[in-house]
Every structure is written in C-alpha cells, then in structure tokens.
C-alpha cells in the first residue's frame, strides 16, 4: 500500500508547475473575492488532482502491470481512497490557512468559529464528489467518468426542479409548513450542521470505497 501511495504522490508531484499556477491564482483571488472562496477553490483543485492519479494509472495501458505488482484489488482501492482523503484534507487544510492569512491581511473582523464551520462544510462536499467519481472512474475509465458526472449533475438539476414543483404542490395541497421546518434548520447551531455534514461525507466516502472494492474485484485487465 505504501508503494501505491508513493506512486500517486509522485504522479501529482510531477504536476508542480500547475500547482504553482493554482496557488498563484488562489492568492490573487483571495484578495478580491469572498474569503471562503479560496477554500472551495482549493478543495476543487485537490479533488481534480487526486482524480488525475486514476487517469495516470490507466495511461499507456498501465493497469495490467500495476496489478501484477504486489497489489491486490483491495489494497489498490484502500490506497486510492486513503490518498484521496489525505490529498483532499491537505489541500483543504492549506486553503484554510491561506484564508485566515488573507482575512488577517485584509484586516477584516471575523469569528474564527464561524469561518471554520463554514469551511468544514466544503470538505465533506468535495469528499462526496470524489467518492462519487472514484467508483465511476474505476468502472468506466476516467474519460467516460467525466461525461457521466456531467450527466449526473444534469439529472440532479432536473430532479431539483421537479422536486421544487412537487414541494410547492405539497405545500398547497397538504398544507405542509416548510417555512417552519427551514426556520428550525436555520436555528440549529452552524457547528452542528457542519459536523453532521462532515459525518455524512465520510460515511458516503466509506460506502463508495466498499462499492469500488466490488468493482475492482470483478474487473479484468
């Protein structure tokens, strides 16, 4: 497993020039935009980078050789998820530090806990996206996975619109008081919301890992 983690790290490290560009853009943006933007931006970059390791694994028909090394389907998936988790955590953590630096430099007043609880919601969000992409990429290949992701987001959008309409009918016909529910949710402490989201993100990630193990075990190279 250690060998796989090193392989993925070296693969990402080869993209140093890109990373410098990302950081530069992030620093520029952090002074012109809302400070939480930098966290979502970096988490997105982190997600994309960890996912590129899958593309590199499959480049030049790399899988048959990779799976001939002392690696089983399970260890491959464990290593990929651990790497993705740590990678994402690293990018997210770095961005949080940058965010505070930018807030201090901009001399804005802020509540540490408020900023942090907002940041904490980004982490599970991107964990969820990576957790969604990994099994799809393993099953269909990284290229097709991108198209599938776009289709999924399209579907989510359509379902969202339909859901909204359904809710409106529900409010009208069954007199369900959504406003009160939303108000109650709003009244929940932000920290509780953030932590529940983090828990949900991690749970989804673990479920995704189990699915990926199943996919890899069935796969032929």
């Amino acid at each position, binding site marked *: 497993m*250690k*060998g796989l983690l*090193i*392989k993925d790290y*070296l*693969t990402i490290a*080869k993209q140093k020039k890109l990373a410098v560009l990302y950081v530069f853009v992030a620093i520029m943006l952090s002074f012109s935009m809302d400070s939480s933007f930098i966290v979502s931006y970096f988490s997105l970059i982190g997600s994309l980078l960890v996912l590129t390791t899958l593309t*590199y*694994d499959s*480049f*030049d*028909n*790399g*899988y*048959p*050789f*990779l*799976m*001939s*090394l*002392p*690696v*089983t389907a399970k*260890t491959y998936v464990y290593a990929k998820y651990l790497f993705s988790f740590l990678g994402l955590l690293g990018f997210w953590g770095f961005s949080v530090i940058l965010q505070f630096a930018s807030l201090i430099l901009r001399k804005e007043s802020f509540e540490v806990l408020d900023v942090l609880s907002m940041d904490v919601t980004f982490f599970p969000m991107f964990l969820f996206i990576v957790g969604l992409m990994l099994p799809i990429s393993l099953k269909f290949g990284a290229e097709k996975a991108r198209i599938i992701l776009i289709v999924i987001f399209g579907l989510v959008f359509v379902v969202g619109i339909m859901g909204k309409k359904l809710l409106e009918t529900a409010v009208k016909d069954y007199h369900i008081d959504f406003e009160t529910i939303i108000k109650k949710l709003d009244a929940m402490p932000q920290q509780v919301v953030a932590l529940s989201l983090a828990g949900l993100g991690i749970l989804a990630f673990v479920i995704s890992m189990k699915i990926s193990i199943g996919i890899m075990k069935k796969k*032929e*190279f």
Partner: protein
Amino acid sequence: MIKINNLQKNYKDFSLDVSLEIPAGTVTGLIGKNGAGKSTTIKAILGLIKPDGGTLEVLGKDPQKFTSKDKEQLGVALSDSGFSMMLNLEDIVKILKSMYRSFDEKFFREQCKEQGLPFDKVLKDFSTGMKAKLRVLVAISHAAKLLILDEPTSGLDVLARNDILDMLRNYLAQDSERSILISSHISSDLEGICDNVYMIHKGKIILREDTDAILGQYGILKVSEEEYAKLDKQYLKATKKESFGYACLTNEKQFYLDNYPNIVVENGNIDDMIMILLGGK
C-alpha cells in the same frame, strides 16, 4: 511452479483452452503468432483475468487468491504495460523499495548504469530498447522465484536482445530453483535460453517439446512429389506443400538420414517448425 489444466477463457471471437506445466528450475518458452493466446495465458497466470474453466496453480495457489506477499515472489514484465511514462528511475526505485521487501536497490542501480539507463530522464524519453531493459530489470531485482515475461525482446535489435537474455541468464545462475515463463515470437531468443517450448495456435497448445530435442532430433525433409510418395510417413509431424514438392517436419531426423540418403534433411529450428506446423496439412 505453474500447473495449468484445461484453462479456458472465452471471448466473442477467441477461445483459449490450454494445459501446461512449468517445474521449478526450468525456462519455458511460449511461442505463437500474434493473437494466438500467449498474452491471455499470461494474464490468467497473473490473475489479471478470470478463467471460465479449468484449474490453474501458480506457486501452489490459485492466482485469483494471490495476496500481496504471494505476488512478491513473481517478477513480471509485460510487453504493452508498465510504469507511468511520467516517472523517472529515481521515482521507480522509491516505488519498488516500498513494494518489495527484498528489492535489491544496489543491484538495480548498478544494472541500470551498466545498461545505460539514465536516472534523470522520464521514461517517456527512453528508447524502445531502454524501456524493454527496464521492464526486465524491474522483474529481476527482487529475488523473484518465478519470472513471467511477455514478449520481453519484441521490437529490439540483436544487441539489446542479447543484453536482455544475458540478464535472464544471470538471474537464473543465482538460484537453481528459479523458473521463467517467456513468451515470444522471436524463436532464436527462445532457442538460446529455453529448456522447453510450448507452441500455441488459435488458443490451443499444438506442441510441447524440449528445445534440445527440437535442435537435435527434429529436422525438415525437403522432398519432391515422387520422393514424398515413397517416404515412410510414420515419423512425420506435419507436412507443407511447397513449390518443389513437400517440406516435412520430423522428430526422427536420424531415421530419414539413415534410410533415405538421397533426400535433403535440414536441421530443425523453431521457425521452420512453426512454418510447417501452422502452414501445413
């Protein structure tokens, strides 16, 4: 080391049905045309594909149940698959060091230098020969018990091919229990290193023979139509129609040399054998 009994794998337009055995301490060649089933057999041995039937035992275990530890006993070089082209040799050393407990870094570095493989270039910039040498070096640098090499010399010039065969000979010399399964369509490579050869055609093994027997006892009879008519055919393995008459493959060259002093008998080699076996009747 390897025992395969009626290994079957079915694809839309190809079916594999292979039996073979590789005892410890032997070098076995798997020879056949492109698409004959060499790579499919090797992939099944490595557990990369799931057989549809038959039994398969590699180092005493079903490859589908291989653990990481089991895989450390194997040294693998595949013709069309390897490390990411973005990596350089330093990166590969780091990866191998943490993959194989018995990775011999000193040996690997020395061999890379000896073979002229640069440490500062990414693999993408390696020549075909360099890439092939690296694939074999990766396979032999962790004291594997069994090497599985798929077309390790394909596309190389004579010098590079010899370098690779020398590396394999050195690997074998270190432990008499070590075995190699090597697939190739370049028969002279196999003649130089293999103890025995399996010939595979359209997914089936059509011949298994010791290399010494091929070179010593096999022969090609080149006969006219009339000579062919008179020929005792009991020791003929295959016959192929030629412009001059017939080319016949025999595994009893001496019998024909003794009894038919007037006919042309050429010494056997794997290439001629393939030509007659695959093109014959």
